[in-house]
Every structure is written in structure tokens, then in C-alpha cells.
């Protein structure tokens, strides 16, 4: 038994280190805490979070992105890990004089310009439809030179054609990046073919 434990410890020490690791982390507001949650995101991991509204998916993504502190528990990030995130919504001002190209630049995105994006980058972001705006933001995030990509409801507002294009875009994302998506669109999740997890499962894996 002792030998097995030693071998197991040795194997664990040689596995690819997690880029982000949560251990018994409680998130949310102190009046309505969610957790404890445990999760290891390794390079190349692709997960989809599917849970009912209010389960804490967006809050978890914001915590992983460093936009919101955890209430308790341990969150470890690998040295100089870079995280990109698509928020659930990004309200636009009525007059917002930025072009699609400006958006890609200010995000630091290196995405490939597909035919749909080629049209969007020359237009002002305040003239795009809801679906076009969502696609531009999604393409910008997926094309970020980062280690972890977090996508909160990436299929919002998309019509059938852009929906299919978004599935392709996410699937073609560089394989070494870890990716975590939150969505309510079951068909979108099935098309992507990533492992589906629920918030309950993440809480269940906490010790």
C-alpha cells in the first residue's frame, strides 16, 4: 500500500500542472454563498458548465478570471497564467465610436479574419446587430493569446448561420488552451462535443 501511494504521488508530481486550480472555494456574496467548489483546469481541458439559472456559473467564471474574489478556499494560478473572458453581456453606449478592428486591437486579439469578421471589422460596434456584436466579441476572445479562455453564454443572440460559425470557431481554438464555457444551449454544447459538467458535480468533488 505504501509503495502504491508513493507511485501515485510520483505520477501526480509528473502530470501536467494545472493552469488554475480551485480547492474548496466558496464564491458569491456572503449572504448567498455558493460552494465549496473544486476544479482543476489543465492545458487543453475543455469543459461546458450546464446548470439552472442562479447556480453560480457566471460567478465562477468571474472568480476564475480574477474579476471577483473568492469568499474562502484556495485558488491557485500557474505563474504568469493569462485568462481571457467573454462576459455574459456587454452593453453598448448609443454612440460608441469604435470599429470592429478597434475592438480586436483593444482586446489584444490575434484571431483569423473569416468572411463574417471581415465585414464586421470595418463597421462601428454601435451599428452592429446583437448577434454580430456577440460574434465579434466571441471571435476576439477565442483569438486571444492566453492560457485559459472563459466563455459565458457564447451562443446568446446568434442566428443559425452565425451559431454554426461560432461552433466552428470555438472548436478550432488552439488545442493547448484550457477552455470553460457556461451555456444553457444544450444543442450548442452537444455540437461542441466538450465534456459537460454541472455546478453540483463541481461541488460534489470538493473534499
Amino acid at each position: 500500500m505504501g509503495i502504491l501511494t508513493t507511485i501515485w504521488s510520483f505520477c501526480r508530481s509528473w502530470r501536467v500542472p494545472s493552469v488554475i486550480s480551485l480547492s474548496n472555494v466558496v464564491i458569491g456574496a456572503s449572504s448567498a454563498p455558493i460552494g465549496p467548489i473544486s476544479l482543476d483546469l489543465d492545458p487543453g481541458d475543455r469543459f461546458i458548465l450546464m446548470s439552472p439559472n442562479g447556480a453560480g456559473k457566471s460567478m465562477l467564471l468571474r472568480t476564475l478570471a480574477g474579476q471577483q474574489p473568492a469568499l474562502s478556499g484556495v485558488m491557485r494560478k500557474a505563474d504568469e497564467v493569462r485568462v481571457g473572458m467573454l462576459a455574459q453581456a456587454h452593453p453598448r453606449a448609443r454612440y460608441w465610436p469604435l470599429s470592429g478592428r478597434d475592438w480586436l486591437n483593444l482586446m489584444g486579439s490575434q484571431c483569423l479574419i473569416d468572411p463574417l469578421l471581415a465585414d464586421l471589422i470595418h463597421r462601428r460596434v454601435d451599428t452592429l446587430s446583437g448577434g454580430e456584436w456577440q460574434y465579434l466579441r466571441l471571435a476576439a476572445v477565442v483569438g486571444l493569446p492566453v492560457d485559459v479562455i472563459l466563455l459565458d453564454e457564447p451562443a446568446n443572440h446568434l442566428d443559425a448561420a452565425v451559431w454554426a460559425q461560432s461552433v466552428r470557431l470555438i472548436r478550432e481554438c488552439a488545442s493547448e488552451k484550457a477552455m470553460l464555457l457556461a451555456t444553457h444551449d444544450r444543442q450548442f454544447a452537444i455540437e461542441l462535443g466538450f465534456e459537460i459538467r454541472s455546478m453540483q458535480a463541481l461541488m460534489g468533488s470538493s473534499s
Partner: protein
Amino acid sequence: MWWTALLTGLGVSLLLGLGGAGLMLRGSVWQALAVSQWSAVGGVLASIIAWPVMTVAALTAGLSLVIVQVKRNSEQWPLGLFLLGSATVLLLAGNFAQAELSAASWAEGQLYFVTRTLALSAALITGLALLTLPFFFLQWLRLQAQPDQGTFPKPNGWRLIAEAVWWTAIIVLATATVGSIATLALLLFPAWIAALVSRNAVQFVCFAALFSVLGYLIAWTLALVLDQPFAPVLILTLCLLSSFVASARALVSYRSLRRFALGQTSKESPQS
């Protein structure tokens, strides 16, 4: 010298045009009201306690900016501070003889009577502000990404403090030179006009500077020729400029729409 006054105002209007574009990108338009009014409070207060005007104005304006930033409230706090600043100026002017004159000069500005010291300060601050502008422009652009998160980290405390100092410096300088009313007009109108016609962020900032300088030059000339106070003439000029640009834009949109409708009709007509 008339050209010293003209050039000082020209530099200030260029800065305010660029700064106004930044304020609009930052979504902090109301902050300008509070900071400008509190720099006037500082100026009036300095006349009573006989302290250096620019120093006291910078302190009070800086303090108001810090409060607005800490409260992170885009409307109520800036507007509340603006009203409090206006009330303070009125109270000081009503109770101290020297404050009455000072309050009038801070509201109307000293553009046509700019002193050598003020002109030199303006040249120095304008030069420094223009040199550091590219740094702040990138910061304003990158802040647009939130709540999305790209590769650039959120600006740290020092960057935000540097930006606050930049705003305070240009607003205090502008209020001392062209007055609080003209300062607000040059911060707001050119950016609004530029937002109507620009296709991207760089065009937006350039157009805002262009409209600001253009509005200033027209108002400067008209105010001198018609022997009228500068600030009201400037506001009227900028209103007219806004109306002209908005009308031209509406006309272009109407013509594009008409061309599109005609194209649709000609496509349908062979079938009918």
C-alpha cells in the same frame, strides 16, 4: 499681446477636444462638471485666503475627482458635487468682496487678458499633456473591454493616479484660461459631434480635437468682432456646428436609404 491669448486658448481648446473624447470613451462626462466647478471653488477660495490660485484650484479639483472616482457613481455624485461647488462659489461671492470678482473671472475666464505666467503655465501643461496623451488613449481604449477580459491587465493604481492628475491639470488650466462654462462646452460638444461622424477610435479623437479648435477659432473671432463675451458665443457656435454636422449626417443617411429603396424597386420591377 493678442496672439499670446489666441495661442494659449488654441492649445487649451486642442487639449479639451482630446480630453473630451477620452471622457466620452470613459463614460465619465458628468465628472467634468464636478471637477471644473471645484477648480473654480479653489480659485475663488484662493482669492480670499491669498494663496497661489492654481495650487488651491488644483487641490480642490483633485479632491473632487478623487471623491467621484472612489464613489464609482457616474451620475449622482458628480452632479451632487457640481451643485455643491456652485453653491459654495455663490456663498463665497456673496460674503467676500474679493471673491465676487474672482468668481466672475472663473466663470467667464481670462482669455483676452491672459497673463504671462498663465500663458507659460498653459504652454508647459499643454506640451506635457500632449506628450502623455498616447499613453492615456491606450488606457481609455483598453478599459472599453470590460466586462470582457483581453490580454491587457486592468490599469493599476499608479496609472489611474497619473490619469487623475492629467484630468485635473487640463481642467484647472482650462477653467483658469477660458472659464468654467467654456471649459465644459469644449469638453462636451466636440466629442458629441465627432461621435456622430467618426468611423473608428482614432478618427473620433482627431475629429473631436478638430471640432474643438474650429469652434474655438470661430468663437474667438466672432466674440471680438461683435464685442460679446467669449463663453456664450462659443456655446452658440458649437450648437450651430453640431446642428450642421447632424443635418449633414441625416442627409447622407437619407440619400443612402433612398438609393437602397430605388435599387430594391428596380430589382422587383422586371418581375412585375
